[in-house]
């Protein structure tokens, strides 16, 4: 018997990606005063699409493709971390993570209901 559903596998990838996004944001925030540091970022939508295809094919998760973000204004010391962008990203990653947890909770409830259906 299998308790894992496709939804729970997809949610697992979603949570992983939300943590990746939070990790990149935390690294950018930590280096806000490091001379020459370039903001790192990822494309959440592309990564999620790739992860969903991976789940459908039953593949193991692949590492996130992270790259330097362009279009940001550099300060004279060569650092281009923007407080506003990072603050927004952190809030976004946090909400994504909590959304994933809430959905996972629903999925678990559904399975528990199926187990306790006779009560």
């Amino acid at each position, binding site marked *: 018997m299998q308790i894992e559903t496709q939804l729970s596998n997809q949610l697992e990838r979603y*949570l*992983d990606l939300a*943590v*990746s996004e*939070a*990790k*990149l*944001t*935390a*690294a950018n*925030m*930590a*280096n*806000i*005063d*490091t*001379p020459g*540091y370039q903001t790192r970022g990822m494309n959440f939508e592309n990564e999620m699409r790739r992860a969903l295809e991976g789940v459908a094919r039953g593949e193991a998760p692949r590492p996130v493709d992270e790259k330097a973000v362009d279009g940001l204004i550099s300060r004279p010391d060569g650092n281009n971390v923007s*407080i506003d962008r*990072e*603050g927004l990203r*952190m*809030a976004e*990653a*946090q909400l994504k*993570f*909590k959304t994933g*947890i809430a959905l*996972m*909770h629903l999925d*678990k*409830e559904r399975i*528990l209901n199926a187990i306790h259906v006779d009560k």
Partner: protein
Amino acid sequence: MNLFGLMEASGSAMQAERMRAEVVAANMANAESTRTESGGPYRRQHVVFAANSVDSPFMNSFADASTPSSLVRGTSLPLGRGNSEDMIEAGVHIAQVIEDSAPPLKRYDPGHPDAGPDGYVAYPDINPLTEMVDLMGATRAYGLNSSAVQAEKSMITAALEIVKS
């Protein structure tokens, strides 16, 4: 991928920013110091930040955290030890604290015990405005990283909710 690793990264930044604020405080406290152990007036100190690379000293101290002696020294927490591949330490550290090479300010004060034969005293070249701006920057960056820690904490708390029914 590890949520505790995130907190380590933000924590390293808070530590570095606090160090920067301490250096600013030392600079302001010594704005009038004309004597130091190395001789001459106090020289303004700067901190230089550097991003942690993948093989940071932290990772190495993590690797030998299993030996009891390193736990006694308290080099790192034995928390959240992932496999070395996904434990990317993404924080910041202070690469060095350097001395400003600007020449000292000369003020005419023949009665001062540290006055030279020409009657001028060498004072440190410290501008309170520059120091205050630096302190403000450190405070803001500290606050930013502490709010990141709050966010990470709430994510960990949310993850714990999965096991509750």
